[in-house]
């Protein structure tokens, strides 16, 4: 009986191995042609006749240009290979790195504000006033600043709107907004060139390097404490001026190339301009956060210089001592009352508001 048992077991084993072998063969057999194709040195010679064509269509080999009856820039290029690179750059570099840059700058400013607080006027306000910016200077500043922020906001909507505004407005709503922003951005762009020119003419002469600027920089501009000497503009303001001017030139030139695509510039140049435009814009925007902070909450008594035009004498001595001395020597220090008068701040009885004594009509 034992023979019967052993023969039955062997039979079972044979069946099992046979089935396993069959499975392996079934699975592996279809791979054989692939393996053969892979190992066979002659396989490539039997090419798909369409492969070459599609390769050219996709512009794998850069700079292939076809011929067409259509007359126009890049009209011989069926698919712009650079477009994909540009898209990759925009989505994977510009958008996240730009957001990070702005975020980091904002965070640093906030951190600095909470750790160090606003810079105070040494010895407190003196009362007497100096005119820091004339009507023309202030007008030019706000004209440039207004245009800059209009362009920055419309530009940022075009760059980041899909992440921020589509959830709020829905795709159709954002479509309308983006169209409007694009039109407005293109329309106001060229004005910024004029504004930049006006800004340059107005402020350049006081923004050239002067003795003491390097020392100011080495001392960290007094942000970390201690008094630093400066003229009408300190080295930090000068650097901001040149960032604004040079960044502005890059923005204007690249912007004009994008805005007026009628001078034969092709997609490669347009793509490159767009990259430059985006990088320059994000840098200038990020630095402008610092400018705005220092002009408002960051330094006590600064904002008035750009609104009504006057600053306190002690403010000037604290931050621009050499300029303050020049103005003092020229006899340009006004009493608080005189400065208020020139700003058109009327005495109580001359204000056209409600009667000060409180008696009602």
């Amino acid at each position, binding site marked *: 009986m034992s023979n019967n048992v052993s023969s039955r077991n062997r039979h079972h084993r044979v069946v099992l191995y046979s089935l396993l072998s069959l499975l392996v063969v079934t699975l592996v057999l279809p791979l054989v042609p692939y393996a053969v194709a892979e190992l066979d040195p002659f396989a490539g010679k039997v090419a798909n006749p369409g492969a070459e064509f599609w390769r050219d269509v996709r512009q794998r080999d850069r700079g292939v240009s076809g011929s067409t009856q259509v007359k126009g820039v890049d009209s011989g290029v069926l698919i712009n290979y650079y477009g994909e690179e540009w898209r990759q750059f925009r989505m994977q570099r510009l958008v996240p790195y730009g957001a990070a840059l702005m975020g980091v700058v904002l965070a640093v400013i906030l951190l600095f504000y909470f750790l160090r607080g606003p810079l105070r006027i040494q010895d407190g306000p003196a009362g007497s006033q100096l005119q820091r910016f004339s009507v023309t200077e202030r007008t030019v500043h706000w004209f440039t600043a207004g245009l800059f922020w209009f362009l920055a906001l419309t530009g940022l909507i075009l760059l980041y709107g899909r992440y921020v505004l589509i959830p709020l407005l829905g795709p159709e709503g954002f479509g309308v907004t983006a169209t409007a922003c694009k039109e407005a951005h293109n329309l106001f762009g060229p004005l910024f060139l004029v504004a930049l020119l006006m800004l340059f003419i107005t402020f350049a002469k006081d923004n050239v390097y002067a003795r003491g600027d390097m020392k100011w920089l080495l001392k960290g501009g007094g942000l970390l404490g201690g008094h630093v000497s400066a003229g009408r503009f300190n080295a930090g303001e000068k650097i901001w001026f040149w960032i604004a001017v040079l960044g502005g030139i890059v923005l204007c030139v690249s912007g004009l190339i994008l805005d007026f695509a009628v001078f034969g510039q092709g997609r490669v140049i347009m793509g490159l301009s767009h990259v430059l435009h985006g990088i320059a814009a994000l840098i200038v925007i990020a630095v402008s956060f610092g400018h705005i902070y220092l002009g408002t909450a960051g330094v006590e008594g600064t904002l008035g210089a750009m609104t009504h035009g006057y600053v306190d004498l002690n403010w000037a001595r604290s931050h621009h001592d050499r300029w303050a001395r020049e103005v003092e020597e020229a006899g340009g220090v006004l009493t608080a009352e005189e400065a208020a*008068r*020139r*700003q*058109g701040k*009327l005495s109580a*009885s*001359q204000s*056209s508001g409600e*009667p000060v004594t409180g008696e009602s*009509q």
Partner: protein
Amino acid sequence: MAIDMNVFQQFAGQMAQLGSMAQPTDYPDEERVERAKAVFRKSIGAEQAGDLEACVKCGLCAEACHFRVSTGDPKYTPARKMELMKRFYQREMGPFRWLYRLATRDITARDLEDWQELVYDSCTTCGRCGMICPMGINIAGIVTTTRQALAEAGLVPADLRAVQQEQGAYGTVFGAGPDTVRQAVEQMRTRGHDVPLDKEKADYLVLTSVVDMMLFTDQLEATIKIFNRLGLDWTFRTDGFEGANFGLLAGVADVQKQASMKVIETAIAIGAKAVIVPECGHAYPALRWSGAEIYGKPLPFDVYVISEFLDLQLQAGKLKLKSDNSDIKVTFHDPCKHGRYSGILDEPRAVIKALGVDFRELPSHGMMNWCCGGGAGVFVIGSAAPLRQAAFGIKYDEVNKTGADKVLMACGSCRLNFLKGAQDNNWDKEIVSLVALVGDNLE
């Protein structure tokens, strides 16, 4: 003859006392407002309504005003001085008054008090702001009407009011009455001049002014010499001699009328062909451009200011002048009320040319001449002294730029103000009357 600077000091001293001599014109607040509004309601015509509706507040007028420019204070901007009247027009006369009454504040007595400084102290109604206005708004005209409204509300500054009240009550200015005329005439007769006084009939009624009789006697003497040399049938009259009209300056209509009618009635009584106004700024327009309106019909005589009259006589070949004065360096200050207001610009220049002097125009001259700062009665307003001094600074610089030694005047108020300015600044310029210079150069 030279003027007596002691008399000038006396004048200055007298003016400082004026405020204390004024009779009070106090009314309850509501009455002040009502009286002022009544003037506006009566006076605003199409010209002023058109002006009030057109201002776009461009602020250019600020650049033309000697008080705004010299003080740097924006509250003196001419366009701002129109706002009181504008508010009245919009709320009570304008086409959308029902709407403006919802949106704007009514005029209060306090507003009127605030406007006193704006239309009296800080405005000589010189009209230079009207020249820069792109809308051609006659801002000085609106200030004049606002002065009338404030005057009716009893808010003429005390010093100016004192003179106006004197002229209203006694017909005299600074105490100068018929006796003053007689004395002045007597003085001129002792100097050898034949001076006709109170002739029954005469072709020319020549007016004078208290300042000419007491201080600027060189102008008076020159006028006498010129009329005698021309051989004209002329006279001074003790019942109608005063050219100055403080009713007009203060904005008090009945005193203005009384003063003008005195001259008009005298001129008609003596059958005058023409009335000659002396070197006095406002006296000319007072008679020339408001006389007929006050009289109620066209005047039966002509009105000339002396510089205009001299030019007419030169043109007619009747007036002969010495013209060997090329060593005298002069410049000329146009009185606002003659030049910009009345178009008498070429006439004084023709006279100056005939004198053969080394004539240099001011940088801003003629229609664009800067006011001296003392016109329209501002010279007598004590509280306006700092403003006048500041504004005179502009004139001081302008004259210095010409390099002239003498500044020719055609207006007594301007001359007073220039003398004061010269004194304050230790100025080496001689302040000379044009008619006096002509009188010295009769052929």
